[in-house]
């Protein structure tokens, strides 16, 4: 920033108005999908859904459906699936309400990706689910559930598709036959591992590496070894 900064009101106005940055193509596709979805509803003369209380499983299913719609409309194009982009999703704000506990399982939330459920930690460890979001990278849906405990929070993402992308680097710790890879991405600690062939990515704020690793590798019936 070697140029002289703007001083006058007119210069500030000129500077701000000169910005012509475009919205990302991905956002355009999402808006187009919303409009297409709206047109579909209108042409079918369906009543708009009443503002019922959505169960999170339903909301996630709807979001996943929307993601599929976006992908199909855009010919499968989407942001690149990189470790960086996936981790960034786990650190963004939720766009959907928090998933509730699965009424049929004491250790799972009522939210899953192709049968791989997000864990329920609130009663045991005090980590409550606070929200969720669904994005897509390279045509794959990435579902993220956010958890918080006090001022700590973390994002837990599961990438759809059993043919998981490969993640390298970091320190690998094997627990019960599953390798857990801990590494730093842009200054944030991240754990990656596979569950039923699905890539899972977890990153947090104010959470120690040990806690991240313990939560990632936790199984029903265990204490949290953080």
């Amino acid at each position, binding site marked *: *920033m*070697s*140029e002289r*900064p*703007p001083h*006058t*009101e007119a210069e*500030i*106005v*000129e*500077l*701000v*108005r*000169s*910005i*012509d*940055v*475009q*919205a*990302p193509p*991905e*956002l*355009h596709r999402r*808006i*187009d999908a*919303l*409009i297409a*979805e*709206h*047109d579909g509803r209108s042409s079918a003369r369906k009543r*708009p859904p009443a503002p019922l209380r959505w169960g999170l499983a339903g909301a996630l299913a709807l979001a996943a459906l929307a993601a599929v719609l976006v992908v199909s409309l855009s010919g499968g194009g989407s942001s690149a*699936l*990189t*470790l*960086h982009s996936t*981790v*960034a999703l786990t*650190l*963004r*704000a*939720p766009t959907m309400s928090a998933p509730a506990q699965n009424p049929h399982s004491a250790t799972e939330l009522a939210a899953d990706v192709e049968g791989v459920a997000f864990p329920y930690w609130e009663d045991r460890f005090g980590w409550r689910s*606070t*929200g969720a979001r669904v994005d897509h990278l390279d045509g794959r849906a990435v579902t993220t559930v956010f958890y918080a405990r*006090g*001022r*700590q*929070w973390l994002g837990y993402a599961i990438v759809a598709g059993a*043919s*998981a*992308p*490969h*993640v*390298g680097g970091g320190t690998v710790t094997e627990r019960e036959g599953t*390798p857990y*890879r801990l590494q730093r*991405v*842009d*200054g*944030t600690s991240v754990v990656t591992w*596979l569950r039923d062939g699905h890539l899972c990515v977890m990153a947090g704020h104010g959470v120690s590496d040990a806690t991240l690793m313990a939560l990632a590798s936790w199984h029903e019936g265990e204490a949290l070894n953080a």
Partner: protein
Amino acid sequence: MRTLDPQSLNKHVDRLFRAAWALCGSREDAEDLVQETFARVLSRPRVLRGDDELYYLMRVLRNTFLTSLRTASRRPVTAAAIEDVVAADPRPTNRPEHAYEVQEIYATIAQLPDNFRLALVAVDVLGLSYKEAAQALQVREATLTTRLFRARKQVSEQLASEPERPQAAEARREDKDASGVMFSEGAP
């Protein structure tokens, strides 16, 4: 009065995105805000009193933004961590004689008090007239003018007071390097 035509909305995405970015100070949050704004607008038929869709969209954007602020205040604090991690996308303005980056300008606007920020975004980013902006923000035109003046003054002072930060520039370069690392297919 006329009904809002959903097909005409996508031409406003870029301007809404810029407005949302200036409101949020974050490119990623701006994407969410724009998507939520359009989802709200499309949730039911809308009747416009005037011809200007942009004015109407600004009203919805404002309401959505204020709602998101209230929601965010009930969530754990995340803003600092998000900004630490997400790579900046420093695209220049269309005036190369200014070395400011979009991210820096919008981040400066995003630090303004809500009322000042909304006034500046409505007029200088979205390009609404004073009258339209005042109506969209539900304030008197004189109030809007005062807020706008103060907002511009604060932005000017803020930009003038910020020295070059070589460490930040270096960090951005490192972010861009890291973002280029792709996954490869196959079992780990």
